[in-house]
């Protein structure tokens, strides 16, 4: 009768027998040993497969999975050039420290792996933030101590950089200057990695950032995309029941960690992503010689996050400095012209609108200071094409650090001395 579900129309008729005592549907058949074949064989396969996968995952490094292995993300502190003093070495080392000391002019250096990674490091180079710290300490140190801290992350997205900066403001740190290295990549990547989620969860940072977002309702992409992500981050105190359940779940998870497959599931998941992307590259013959275009939605969202970051910095009287990161001067270029043009357009607008100090370092680093040498380790058949499109050599970092210091020295000198709000 029903036009909605004609072939199930007998169901209503069946209702007439509802409630009548019915015999229980329970056919107990005696199982034989054949029945155990599938569960036992499955179990053996799960154990074998799990062992094999987790064994491989131990040495898997998601940061280096897609790179050529010639990039070093660690600061090298045995630099012997330019006669760095012990103190300068010590200050250079401190750029990776988390907090600013009190009573100094604080410079937060944001960016992606270009800021952190050194191509073909020989173990005796400094990164550009370290150079900035050393040069500041030589020049303006005596009158006003300057401390540089790195808030950069490999493959950083703009929202992650916003999270990093806002967590510092929320902790009461006074930042005199923010230096942002901008490449189209920062406008491409949009997710939060677990470390940043952890940062947001801590100390009510997510709630603080959510408040900041809700005060900037005109940035609609931020409001619609970032707000749900922040609200999903539990920063509201849990009820005692839920706290108990969560802690019990964590304890059970810790127990389950004894099974290697469970312990390395994070790494295995990233291995899966890398494998899928590699398969895709192989299938569609995608060569790593040009970055994929930044999707329009990602670009629009990230541009608004950048604007929010500038507003947050402004509201804390922080001088905001943006430089367009160096580009590899080779062939057709790594980033598409369209991405570079619209990044430039957004940057020009923001610099004008907020009266920022903006610098163009696109052509600053000569070809020789990029990864343009043969990658003999992994690709012996490659010609003399670049093997790395983003990361600078140690000398490249030195050039960048020097130029940056030259350009922003005045802002650093004029920036107010930081004093922890918490301490005060």
């Amino acid at each position, binding site marked *: 009768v029903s036009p909605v579900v004609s072939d199930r129309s007998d169901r209503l008729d069946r209702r007439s027998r509802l409630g009548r005592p019915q015999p229980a549907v329970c056919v107990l058949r005696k199982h034989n040993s054949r029945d155990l074949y599938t569960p036992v064989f499955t179990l053996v396969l799960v154990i074998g497969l799990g062992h094999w996968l987790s064994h491989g995952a131990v040495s898997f490094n998601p940061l280096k999975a897609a790179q050529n292995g010639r990039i070093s993300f660690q600061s090298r502190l045995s630099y012997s050039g330019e006669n760095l003093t012990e103190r300068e070495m010590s200050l250079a080392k401190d750029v990776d420290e988390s907090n600013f000391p009190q009573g100094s002019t604080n410079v937060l250096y944001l960016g992606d792996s270009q800021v952190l990674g050194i191509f073909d490091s020989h173990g005796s180079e400094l990164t550009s933030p370290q150079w900035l710290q050393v040069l500041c300490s030589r020049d303006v140190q005596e009158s006003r101590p300057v401390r540089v801290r790195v808030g950069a992350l490999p493959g950083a997205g703009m929202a992650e950089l916003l999270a990093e900066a806002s967590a510092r403001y929320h902790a009461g740190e006074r930042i005199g200057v923010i230096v942002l290295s901008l490449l189209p990549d920062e406008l491409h990547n949009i997710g939060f990695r677990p470390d940043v989620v952890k940062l947001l969860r801590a100390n009510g940072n997510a709630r603080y950032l959510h408040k900041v977002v809700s005060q900037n309702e005109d940035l609609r992409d931020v409001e619609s995309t970032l707000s749900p992500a922040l609200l999903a981050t539990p920063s509201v105190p849990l*009820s005692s029941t839920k706290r108990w359940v969560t802690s019990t779940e964590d304890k059970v998870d810790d127990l389950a960690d004894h099974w290697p497959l469970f312990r390395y599931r994070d790494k295995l998941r990233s291995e899966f992503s890398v494998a899928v992307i590699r398969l895709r590259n192989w299938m569609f013959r995608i060569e790593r010689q040009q970055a994929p275009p930044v999707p329009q*939605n990602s670009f629009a969202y990230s541009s608004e996050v950048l604007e929010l970051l500038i507003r947050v910095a402004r509201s804390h009287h922080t001088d905001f400095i943006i430089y367009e990161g160096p580009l590899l001067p080779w062939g057709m270029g790594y980033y598409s012209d369209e991405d570079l043009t619209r990044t430039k357009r957004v940057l020009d607008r923001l610099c004008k609108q907020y009266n920022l100090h903006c610098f163009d370092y696109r052509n600053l680093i000569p070809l020789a200071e990029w990864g343009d040498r043969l990658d003999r380790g992994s690709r012996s058949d490659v010609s003399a094409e670049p093997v790395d499109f983003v990361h600078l050599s140690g000398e490249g970092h030195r050039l960048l650090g020097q130029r940056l210091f030259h350009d922003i020295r005045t802002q650093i000198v004029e920036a107010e001395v930081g004093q922890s709000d918490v301490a005060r």
Partner: protein
Amino acid sequence: MSLSGPLFYIFVTLVWLAVRAMHGNTLKAIGLLGASYLFYATFGVKSLCCLVLCSLGNYALGALLRRNPSATLLTVCAFLNCVLLAAFKFLPERAGSHVGALPVLIHPVGISFWTFQSLSYLFDIYRGEELDPSLLEFCLYLSFWPTVLSGPITRLGDMLPQFRKIPRAGFDDLAAGVRLVVLGLFMKVVLAQLMAAGIRQGEGVDFGFDAASPIWGGLDTWSLAVGYGMQLYFDFAGYSYLVIGVARLFGIKVPDNFDRPYVASDPSSFWTKWHMSLSFWIRDYVFLNLARLRQSTAWLYVCLVISMAIFGIWHGATWNYVVWGIYSGLILVIHRLIQRARRGERTNSWYRQALGWSTTFAFISLGWVIFRSHDMRQAGRMLFSVLSPHSYLHLSLPYDYYLLTFVVTAGYFLQAIFRAMVSRQPRVARLNAILVPMYYAIAIVSITVFSAKQSPFVYFRF
């Protein structure tokens, strides 16, 4: 308590062992009720209080209705349940960001499901069906822990005979239960999550819809519509298989909720395969009652639209759900009109079937855009892009998203075809001795890997 975490399965095992050790049906029912309340309490003790009070209240109303089956009393019973649903489900939703102003409001998990179960009980009593549950049986019916969170919406008539003689689960029950749990987890934890988050974190359906940028090309909208349809199916059908499987471990059979909906070749058939427990509820207690009021074809169509609008509102108090319900109702009406126009035509050629399938799939998918959008403005913008030929020229989403949607959708249909072929090929079926354990092993390993709380960051520039 997360249904995909190890704690849940420890809980299942302990309850299973405890119930198995119990003798006597009443004791087993008490054991299951205790486990149900304990499980539900993990989502909040206040929510549990609400569930218990609702159970007691509806049991009392049922007893009254049995003694005095009047339409007035039924109306009062239905009204009270609707008020309960509105107060605890819709008010907190409407309060939205003003929750601080309404601190006493809680949102008991699964209230839409167990309120509808209560209503079906009351309607069935009014209809004169022989339902005479004890208080224990009724409380167990409403709070039965595998189904209390998100259905399927069961009927007392299906569950009562099983609660009256709780079977001792046999080997077949265990095997079927584990099979369903693995399938459900694979769909929910692996496939749904992959569609929602994308291969790289933040490049899935969620970002596609949540980015409020006014840029959606026609192809973006289509791929988001199909992608979200797949995500919703894997998530909800996976959940349903999971809970049906858990119930089966205890020897209790819960009705199916999904039956390969996307292979349906017409909208009516789709709604017999999608969220079956709700669509049958709406049919039995809303549509048929409305349809009996007047004998005219036009009224029948109005009833269809009203029923589907209620179907939509059940999901939440937003205009999107109302419009989605009306849209789904109108599609059913159009299908009925086409059926009437073709009455007498006997041919059912393959191309007609293919046309029916593709049209159904397209219109159902477009409906998901209304369902998932934040507001009608967004839905309107996205749907408008489908009609705008020049918008197809630009793509706004990450390329990997299109690829993922294509692969997952193609995979869904290919496995449907493969299943149909295998069932006809006894030779292929012989390979099951190898294929089945391999399938389960890969599924279990994938579930474990994807049970990570969050996809780790992958530094990959492509």
